[in-house]
Every structure is written in C-alpha cells, then in structure tokens.
C-alpha cells in the first residue's frame, strides 16, 4: 500500500510585483482558482510533472540543489499548497516538520505554546496532556517550560518545536532540513527517534542536504532537479549520481578566467594574494589539470592521480630557469610546494614553446578546495612569470576524515578485535 502517491504534479508560482493582482475583484471571487486568472503573467514552474509513490513504512530521502523544488513538493504533500495540476494523495495522519515552532507566541509560556502548537498539528487537548512530559523531556526544557518563549535561545525554540511535532505520533512524517538545528546530542536524539519511527513501520519523507543521512537511513531516494525527477531508487545510486552531477557543474564553474588574471606589481610572495607578476622573459601560457585518462577537470577524487600540465614559452633562449608548483588550502595554508631547483635539477636550455608536466601519483588530500601556484623563475628567485593561486581545484571524498593530508594508509587488527567495513 502506498502512503503517498504523487501523480504528474505541476506547481506554478506567479512572479509579479506586489501591485499586480486580480483584474477585478469580481473576477477574483468568481474564478477562485488563481492560475487561470493569471495566464500570460511571468510565472515560475517549481514542479514540472512529478510522479512517484512512497510505500507505507518506507523512508524516502529527497535530494537536489537549492531551488530544485524539494520544499515545494513537501508542502504540496503536507497540504499547505495545492498543485496547479496533478494529484497528491496521502493516506494516514501526517505531521510536517517544515518549520519548527511556527506559530509559537513569544509572549506566552512554553507550556501554553506546546498545547496550542500540538492542537494546530491535530492533537486533542487530552492527547497533548498525556504526552506533555514526554515532549518536554525530549526537548530537555524541564526547567524552562513555564518561561515565556521569547526568553528561549533559538536552539531551545527549535527543540521544543521539533519535540511537539514528532510527538504528534504521525503515520507519515515529512521532514524539511531541520536536523541542522540543535547541538550534536540533540541531533543524535532526533536520529534515534527517526530510527524508532522506521522500526514501527511509519513512513518518512526527508528533504536534506546531509547526503550521508540519505544513504544510511533511507530505503529509497529521489533526486529532484529543476522541478523534475532525475532519478528515483536505491539511495546509494541516486546520491552518487547526484554528487557526480554536482561535481560536473562545479567543474564548469571553476574553470578559471585566465585572461583576466591581473598583472600585479608587488613581488612580496609571503603576503601577496592571488595575482600574476614577473619579468615575462618566459611565460606560462596555459595550465590544465588532467585526470588519469587525460581529460581536463577541476574536481578530483581524493587519491586519484593528477597531472598539472603547463604550456610555457620562452621569448628568448634561457639558461637560468626553475619550474615550481605549490598547493594551498582554502585557508591559505601551504600544503605542498616544490620546484625543480629544490629537487636538484640543473637548468640546461629553455627556448620557444614547451610543455611541463607535474604528476601526482596520488592526490593525498582530504576533501576541500585547493589553490594552485605555478611559476617560472631564476635560481635566485626573481620571477619570470609567477601565477599566485590563480587556479582552484576541488578534491572530493566519500570519507569525512579531517586535516589536510591523507597519506596512503591501512589499518590492521590483531585477533580479539573483530571489525568490518574497512
């Protein structure tokens, strides 16, 4: 049996200035439906024909970029909005964690707010009274429950809102990115509560950007993109496909604007921000980052081999030259720097156009953005052409290890410890 059925749902929002409204009051009242009234106006289609089912007892995660229609979808399922076209069917009592504590009145006590909020979510007074202690305990607000809500910290406010909503004991729970509130221990409590929901065979629909939550917790995942379903199915597969797509898009946006790299007069390398300087007897004309298969990219998996390829040109034959490369973290920490002189190379001759390659056997960095320096200079350090942090690469990783550097490593365990998954 399906708990949620969505059939070919479209949702069109109008984009109009505040002044633009109905043609006439009469037509507004007679038509009721607004969409017809406003054909021809600037509209924004948040959902373009979405269909899916969520079987009762399943946990489904919805992923997608900002503005892809996730929250709109959730609101339509919650019944807060009506689809412009198509049908949404929901079977069972539903509670929506879309905004926590919406409807709390700041001037009155937490206790009164719990009752009113609970009733708004569909509980009777008696049901709330029965669950009251549980609600307060879950939020951890026993000492503050009689204080006006305006004295609460934002975390307390959210916790109370979450606690009320989750204790409504719905058959279907809609969650919109609310786990980001609260501290670690509260997040764990929430996850435990979700796990309990799952065990008890409730249906959960989860909108989140915490992708590991989707792969760990959900039975299926739905990837919305630009108001359409891109993929629906096994969470691991959907999340991976989504990540690949995000990486591809970042790749396009990170492609540097080399032509605009400005020439800067300062040569103080320790304080210089990004820029380009040097005497230009030799020049770095082009820099590209290549994957193992030779395709250019700006997003790399941690541990992947990377090839930095420089197209260089000497305007006159040179006998004093050094090629250098440096990698900086987003915070500006130098992760690694080297050049041909440090590594003991003796310059011979450099004339005309040439290519220089720098090969990482394995890019041993944790996930993050990194800036790259490339340079040609004399042995005494005087630069011919210095590109300071003009290039950015992104390193991605499925692991959440920390630091900067990921050395090749493995774990060993003697007998007495049984562990799996490594």
């Amino acid at each position, binding site marked *: 049996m399906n708990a949620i059925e969505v059939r070919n749902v479209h949702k069109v929002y109008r984009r109009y200035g*505040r002044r633009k409204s109905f043609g006439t009051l009469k037509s507004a*009242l007679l038509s009721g439906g*607004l969409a017809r009234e406003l054909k021809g106006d600037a509209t924004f289609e948040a959902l373009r024909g979405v269909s899916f089912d969520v079987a009762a007892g399943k946990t489904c995660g919805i992923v997608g970029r900002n503005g892809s229609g996730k929250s709109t979808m959730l609101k339509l399922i919650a019944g807060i909005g009506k689809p412009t076209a198509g049908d949404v069917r929901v079977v069972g009592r539903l509670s*929506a964690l879309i905004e926590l504590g919406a409807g709390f*009145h700041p001037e*009155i006590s937490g206790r*009164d707010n719990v009752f*009113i909020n609970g*009733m708004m979510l569909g509980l009777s007074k008696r049901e709330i009274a029965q669950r009251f202690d549980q609600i307060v305990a879950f939020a951890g607000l026993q000492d503050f429950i009689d204080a006006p809500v305006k004295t609460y910290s934002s975390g307390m406010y959210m916790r109370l809102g979450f606690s009320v909503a989750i204790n409504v004991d719905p058959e279907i729970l809609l969650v919109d990115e609310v786990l980001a509130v609260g501290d670690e221990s509260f997040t764990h409590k929430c996850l435990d509560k979700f796990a309990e929901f799952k065990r008890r065979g409730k249906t959960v629909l989860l909108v989140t950007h915490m992708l590991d939550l989707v792969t760990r917790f959900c039975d299926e995942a739905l990837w919305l993109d630009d108001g359409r379903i891109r993929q629906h199915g096994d969470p691991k597969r959907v999340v991976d496909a989504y990540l690949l797509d995000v990486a591809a898009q970042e790749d396009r946006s990170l492609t540097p604007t080399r032509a605009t790299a400005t020439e800067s007069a300062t040569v103080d390398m320790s304080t210089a921000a990004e820029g380009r300087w040097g005497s230009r007897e030799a020049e770095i004309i082009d820099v590209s980052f290549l994957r193992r298969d030779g395709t250019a990219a700006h997003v790399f998996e941690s541990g992947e081999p990377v090839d930095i390829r420089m197209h260089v040109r000497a305007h006159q034959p040179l006998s004093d030259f050094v090629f250098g490369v440096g990698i900086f973290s987003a915070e500006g920490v130098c992760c690694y720097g080297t050049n041909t002189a440090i590594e003991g190379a003796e310059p011979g001759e450099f004339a005309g156009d040439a290519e220089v390659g720098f090969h990482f056997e394995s890019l041993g960095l944790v996930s993050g953005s990194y800036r790259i320096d490339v340079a040609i200079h004399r042995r005494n350090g005087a630069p011919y052409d210095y590109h300071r942090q003009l290039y950015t690469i992104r390193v991605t990783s499925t692991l959440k290890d920390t630091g900067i550097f990921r050395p090749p490593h493995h774990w060993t365990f003697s007998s007495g410890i049984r562990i799996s998954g490594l």
Partner: protein
Amino acid sequence: MLHSLRQLLRHRALIQSLVARELKARYRGSVLGIVWSFLNPLLLLLIYTFVFSVVLPASRSGQIEHFPLFMFCGILPWAWFSSSLLESASVLIASGGLLRKVLFPAEVLPIVTVLAGLVHFCLGLPILLAFILYYRVAITTDIFWLPLIVAEQLLLTLGLALLVSSLTVHFRDLRDLLGNVLTLAFFATPIVYPLSQAPEWSRRLLVLNPFTHLAVSYQEVLFDERPFTDWMRVAVMAGVSLAVFAIGYFVFDRLRDTFAEEV
C-alpha cells in the same frame, strides 16, 4: 463550505486556546494588565461625554436624559465591532509564517480575533451595568433579549471579518481603506445621537447600515425603559447576520488555497 465548517468544529479546542492566548498575551508586560479591558471603554466614554456635553452642549443630544449611558450602550458594541474588523484585516498577513508552514484552517485566525473582542465586550458589560444602576434606570426583562442581539452581532462581525481578512491578502489597500470606512460608519450609526433625531433624509440611509439596527436594539434593550416590542428588527437582523456570515465564509473558503502563496 459545509465540509470546511465541520472541519472548523473539530478545531474548537484550538480556537478556545488561541482566544485564551490572545487575552493572556495582550496585556503581558503591561502594569495594569486586564484592567485595561475595563479602562479602555471607560476612557472612550469619557472622551465622548466630554465632547458632546461640554464642548458641543448645543447639539440635540443634550435633550436626552442620561446621555452618557445612552452613548455607552452603542460605544461598547461598536468598539468590539470596529477593533475586530481592523485586526482581522492584518491577521492573515501577520501570521504569514504560520500559513506557509503549518496546515491548519486559516479561518481560525480571524475567528479568534472576533472572539477575543467578544470577551473584551463581555468584560465591559459590568461597567455598563454599573452605569445603569448609577443612573437608576430600571432593568427590565428586556435584558433577556441581549444575548440574542450579541449573537447577531457576533455572526455579522464574523462574516465581515472573514471577508475582510481574506480580501486583504489580495488587496492590501483594503487595510487603509477600512480604517476610514469604519470612522464614517461610526458616525453613520446612531451611537452618539438617537436615530429618531436624525434628519428625515438621512434616516433612509442610516437604516441601510446593519449596525444601526444593532445599536438601536442595544439602546432599546438596555437604555429604553419602555417594554421591548421591536422584535421585527431583531428577526430581520438575524437573517442579515446569517447572510453576511454565509457570504463571508464563502469568499474566505474560495480564496483559502491562495493564502499560503500570497501572504
């Protein structure tokens, strides 16, 4: 519409709690607290008494005995009526966050506004009673008509509040317009003058104002010592109030789905 009304009935506990919250929250932090509910109509009365007895003593109203009591019979219900409508005009917009994020019947909000006004009105009644005793006006069995008149006013106010609140979401100018319309309506209602003393030509217009009949009924029941015989007026007003309520609810129900996007 009937379905929505049934839904609404299921939310009566919520409405009740929200009214209680409204009353609690309104005076939270003020020194006099709930005393303001008594003080506000009293101060209003003082101002009108001053204007019509001291500043403008020549006005015809001077001919009425116990003129302050006469005015109070109209001002008290009017204060409920006008404040409810003014607040309903912004109640949906002010609760936009709620309408966008939580599924619950939006009509609860204007209804709560009107009911909170009713509570304030009822708190003003003891003061009115004190005035009646002070002026030694006889309290007759006419007073049993009072609940019926209050009920009619409640229906009328609810209907208009639903209408105003839902339309303001789409036509925000209504909010400013309403304030002026209500000022006009106040003087177009026999509150600070008796209907019988209005010029003949204007009386024909005044009877078109539904609140005229409510005000006259209040005056006849509470102020006029003669036995109440004007049941025809009450009966017609019952029909009018019901019709206004039905229209208000119909319009609100029609526009309901648009609130989440427009507020």
